[in-house]
């Protein structure tokens, strides 16, 4: 047994020894220990180096509020930095290391920063690096010189670079009552609500339910408080309408009484169970929330208050009572309230020597006096601690008389190895602040109390400012009952045995020592001192928001849990105004650090949703390079060994024009438009007319947005009198669906039309090329596919190898072409049959690159040209704008600016230097080169090598449009260094008469 562990007592399991390492050194602890308690038991006093000055730091707290003892936990090759040692449960094999030190924690070169203390004060960065000139250098240059050193010297832990093998997940939960915090108030609230039959979730940030009952030393119902809490927890665990969530920090309170919480599922285990996530983020939707989040103790600001060995009194009490660890052998206490006296008595009972209790107040309550008697040691009322001695551990303190708010008289030295401090308590109102008005300052409690709720929550326990256990229990029970909508009180209020103490602290936050040379810290984690706060005031940053940003007080990972109120108090004293006049900042989520993994959860890696066509596996098996297109994956090319992408698509496109090719078009958006008003509806949403379309025929249609710009295009097939199959571009499928639904719901609710997404119902294969009909003749049964049976834009039904199909003769490539649609479950079957039927004709599957090449050669537009800024006229599609009927966008399409002849409009561009063109490159009429760029008249939208023309060509949107045909111009692409001559031509590069379409 090491020096600091008590012989008996505490809630740890002394029969179970756990081995771990910290900074490479082996230690042991017991089940129930945190890394902090185990190291403290082993005599460790130094836990970290401070942010700016690299000062040695020890434990301040025992819980989530710990500002100093941040460690990095190493696991499975990954690093989890900036975890408070107080929040790490030890397990066999735990490896942790300290942070922000070099080369080691005990010998840290960065500590020289402490010597330049004045230099690194508040506003250091602003003054040093944004000043106009320092010597020969501009401020920003100084920054560039110093940045590397400063970034290394100042900071927290380092994140790892290795991929995290752990899994994370999210889960949704619904309950009638969510109780946050399982201290006594939370426990009884949960029980009261549960007994009313409500669905209850009880979330506790710590590993064990019970909160302060685990270390208060009080007795409830005749038993130790921790046992009473244990029994109540067991009672709740046995109820199937209750879910207990230990190790779960509720960190955000959002609209609709929705709260976010993160559960530490397996990180505390030596070996996670199979498939167990490390963290799980809960989204909890609660009818009513009971906030029983307790209160956090505040330190007192005095010179040298950051020396390792100076800790909060409640933390010292907790280490002794819960973990059986004495934070010191000879301990002094320093307080402005009665709470520290209970700690003094507990520490004495656990075996520590109490040297003195130093209290700024001249008089104390009877209860406190009784506890002081039990603790032993000197009782120094009307005194204050004015300094500390020691290096990496405390060796003594200086005490002076404290009168009228200032230290007086000679300093007295007290040799102690631990100073337990209590500066009063701040209710944990973070969640309440996210779901409430402004917090309310209480002069009596010297604390901000919870605000008026703006959402449905109730408070209970120390959260409300309640200082005694009996009050917390009564509040908890009342809140639980009210949250459950219950009336009858089914539970009995248990007897509480606890000393009677005065809940009101003295309004003392800082012991200012004039001419004191030692720093007095307010924010330990960001190294902000009382002098920094004063400096902020002198320089005019007097409001809380300005002070916070100027000094960075409260902006570290602990978000000022221990420092906000002392900081405000010091500013208020400097300004001579009451504390609430300085204001308080609204707390933001998250209350405590949340792992990014648990937020990203499943939307990561192979769990990212992907859409696959029915023929996906065939494509992959046949050498396709798959390309993401939105959430879809589509074949880019089916490359042969040794082929470049260009060689592959040129071969594929050439084969289509020479014989036959087949392409997967299953990704096209498909919408069933059904009902007696379907035709009338289509007339309104398309620019052209569909009511005249005969059954069994398809028509190309164009849609505009309300503002008159082109929205989408596609073919729509009339399958029956009241039954249309609309196709959309792949990219716009969801948007078109929403657009149409909007008009049916909002604008024309009188139309009897149903819209249903059938994109996934149909697999589509387009067979194109001069031999396409011959391929179909071999494959399709049950119908003729000749010109008479299947004219251009005609539709027939038949079968391919036993699978029902619909065949529509339409073309995107300019060749004779057919789209063969079948049930998606038959997709591969039909595809394979078509490929087999095409073998005598040398059919090839082709991908997006060849598809793009074929359409560029024909001057067909796609999303590259329909970019939200082009009109039908710009794209030479104005022939589709009906003059006989209004349609969506019809009026706005005729705006003056949209008919301007100077608008960018569609042309073709041919490379004259035989080199490839780049999409997005600009076009200039004047010679353009690296030495001087001509004025842009537009840009290239789509580029390819055209096997039909044997040239590099592009589609382009150029000012002047068709009037430029035959003009010589230049591409200008300074980003990629591509300049050169081009000719502007018609966008109909190939077969402008469309003779091939008809075979």
């Amino acid at each position: 047994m090491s020096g600091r562990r008590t012989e008996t007592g505490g809630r740890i399991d002394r029969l179970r020894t756990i081995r771990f390492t910290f900074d490479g050194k082996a230690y042991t602890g017991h089940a129930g220990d945190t890394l902090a308690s185990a190291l403290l038991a082993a005599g460790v006093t130094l836990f970290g180096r401070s942010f700016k000055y690299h000062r040695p730091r020890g434990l301040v707290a025992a819980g989530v509020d710990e500002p100093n003892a941040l460690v990095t936990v190493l696991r499975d090759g990954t690093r989890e930095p900036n975890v408070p040692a107080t929040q790490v449960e030890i397990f066999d094999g735990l490896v942790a290391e300290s942070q922000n030190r070099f080369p080691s924690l005990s010998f840290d070169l960065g500590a020289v920063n402490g010597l330049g203390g004045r230099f690194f004060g508040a506003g250091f960065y602003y003054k040093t690096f944004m000043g106009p000139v320092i010597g020969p250098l501009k401020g920003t240059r100084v920054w560039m010189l110093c940045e590397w050193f400063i970034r290394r010297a100042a900071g927290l832990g380092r994140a790892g670079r290795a991929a995290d093998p752990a899994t994370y997940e999210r889960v949704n939960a619904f309950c009638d009552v969510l109780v946050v915090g399982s201290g006594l108030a939370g426990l009884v609230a949960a029980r009261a609500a549960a007994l009313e039959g409500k669905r209850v979730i009880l979330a506790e940030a710590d590993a064990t339910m019970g909160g302060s009952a685990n270390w208060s030393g009080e007795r409830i119902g005749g038993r130790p408080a921790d046992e009473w809490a244990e029994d109540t927890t067991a009672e709740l665990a046995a109820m199937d309408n209750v879910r207990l969530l230990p190790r779960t920090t509720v960190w955000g309170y959002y609209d609709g009484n929705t709260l976010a919480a993160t559960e530490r599922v397996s990180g505390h285990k030596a070996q996670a169970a199979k498939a167990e996530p490390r963290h799980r983020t809960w989204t909890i939707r609660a009818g009513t929330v009971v906030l029983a989040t307790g209160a956090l103790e505040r330190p007192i600001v005095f010179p040298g208050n950051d020396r390792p060995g100076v800790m909060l009194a409640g933390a010292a009490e907790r280490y002794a009572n819960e973990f059986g660890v004495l934070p010191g052998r000879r301990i002094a206490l320093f307080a402005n309230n009665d709470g520290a006296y209970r700690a003094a008595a507990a520490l004495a009972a656990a075996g520590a020597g109490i040297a003195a209790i130093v209290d700024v107040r001249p008089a104390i309550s009877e209860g406190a006096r009784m506890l002081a008697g039990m603790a032993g040691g000197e009782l120094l009322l009307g005194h204050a601690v004015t300094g500390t001695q020691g290096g990496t551990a405390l060796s003594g303190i200086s005490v002076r008389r404290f009168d009228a708010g200032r230290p007086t008289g000679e300093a007295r030295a007290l040799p102690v190895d631990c100073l337990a401090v209590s500066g009063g308590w701040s209710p944990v109102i973070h969640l309440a602040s996210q779901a409430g008005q402004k917090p309310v300052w209480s002069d009596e409690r010297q604390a901000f109390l919870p605000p008026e709720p703006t959402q449905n929550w109730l408070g209970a326990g120390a959260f409300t400012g309640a200082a005694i256990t009996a009050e917390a229990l009564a509040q908890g029970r009342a809140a639980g009952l009210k949250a459950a909508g219950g009336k009858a009180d089914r539970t009995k209020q248990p007897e509480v045995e606890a000393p009677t103490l005065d809940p009101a602290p003295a309004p003392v936050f800082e012991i200012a020592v004039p001419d004191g040379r030692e720093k007095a810290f307010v924010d330990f984690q960001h190294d902000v001192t009382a002098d920094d706060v004063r400096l902020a005031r002198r320089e005019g940053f007097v409001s809380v928001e300005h002070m916070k940003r100027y000094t960075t007080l409260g902006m570290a990972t602990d978000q000022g849990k221990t420092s906000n109120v002392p900081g405000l108090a010091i500013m208020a004293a400097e300004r001579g105004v009451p504390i609430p006049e300085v204001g308080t900042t609204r707390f933001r989520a998250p209350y405590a650090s949340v792992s990014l993994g648990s937020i990203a959860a499943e939307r990561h890696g192979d769990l990212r949703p992907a859409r696959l066509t029915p023929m996906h596996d065939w494509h992959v098996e046949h050498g396709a390079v798959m390309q993401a297109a939105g959430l879809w994956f589509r074949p880019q090319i089916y490359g042969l060994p040794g082929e470049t992408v260009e060689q592959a698509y040129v071969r594929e496109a050439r084969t289509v024009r020479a014989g036959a090719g087949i392409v997967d078009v299953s990704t096209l958006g498909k919408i069933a438009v059904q009902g007696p008003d379907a035709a009338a509806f289509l007339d309104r949403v398309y620019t052209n007319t569909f009511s005249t379309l005969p059954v069994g025929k398809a028509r190309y249609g164009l849609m505009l947005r309300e503002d008159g710009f082109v929205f989408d295009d596609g073919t729509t097939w009339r399958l029956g009198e009241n039954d249309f199959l609309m196709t959309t571009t792949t990219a716009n499928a969801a948007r078109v669906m929403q657009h149409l639904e909007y008009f049916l719901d909002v604008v024309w609710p009188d139309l009897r039309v149903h819209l249903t997404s059938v994109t996934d119902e149909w697999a589509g294969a387009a067979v194109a090329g001069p031999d396409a009909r011959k391929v179909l003749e071999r494959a399709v049964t049950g119908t003729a596919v000749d010109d008479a049976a299947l004219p251009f834009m005609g539709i027939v039904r038949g079968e391919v190898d036993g699978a029902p199909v619909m065949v529509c003769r339409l073309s995107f490539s300019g060749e004779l072409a057919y789209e063969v649609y079948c049930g998606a479950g038959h997709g591969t079957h039909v595809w394979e049959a078509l490929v087999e039927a095409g073998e005598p004709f040398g059919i090839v599957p082709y991908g997006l690159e060849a598809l793009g090449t074929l359409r560029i050669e024909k001057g067909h537009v796609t999303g590259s040209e329909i970019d939200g800024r082009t009109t039908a006229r710009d794209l030479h599609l104005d022939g589709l704008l009906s003059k006989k009927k209004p349609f969506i966008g019809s009026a706005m399409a005729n705006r003056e600016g949209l008919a301007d002849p100077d608008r960018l409009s569609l042309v073709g561009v041919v490379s004259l230097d035989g080199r490839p063109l780049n999409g997005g490159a600009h076009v200039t009429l004047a010679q353009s080169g690296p030495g001087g760029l001509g004025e842009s008249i537009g840009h290239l939208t789509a580029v390819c090598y055209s096997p039909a023309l044997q040239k590099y060509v592009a589609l382009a949107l150029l000012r002047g449009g068709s009037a430029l045909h035959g003009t010589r111009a230049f591409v200008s692409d300074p980003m990629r260094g591509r300049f050169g001559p081009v000719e502007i031509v018609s966008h109909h590069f190939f077969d402008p008469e469309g003779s091939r379409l008809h075979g």
Partner: protein
Amino acid sequence: MLIACPYCGPRDVAEFTYQGDANRPRPDPASTDLDAWNDYVYQRANPAGPHREYWQHSGGCRSHLLVTRNTLTHEIAGVAFVRSAPVPATKPAPAAPRKRPASRKAKP
């Protein structure tokens, strides 16, 4: 934010798509009054406070809903199917005063 879909019940805002201001009277489809269309397509009141707006329950029943939402607090005062609510084309302009440019012809 939760929206209580009249069909599906309260659902997270992630299931919904904002579909625009619900205070816009759509001109008669055959109208060629560009000022009226301009108002409909481009002019918005952008109030700080209660606002009538369309939300589609795109991740649920796909109905369009008329939601009265406070833009300052996200508080939702009412949700109804648009189909059972008055159609904006037949509604008068909203009661809230809307700033409009004095003259649209002024620009060069």
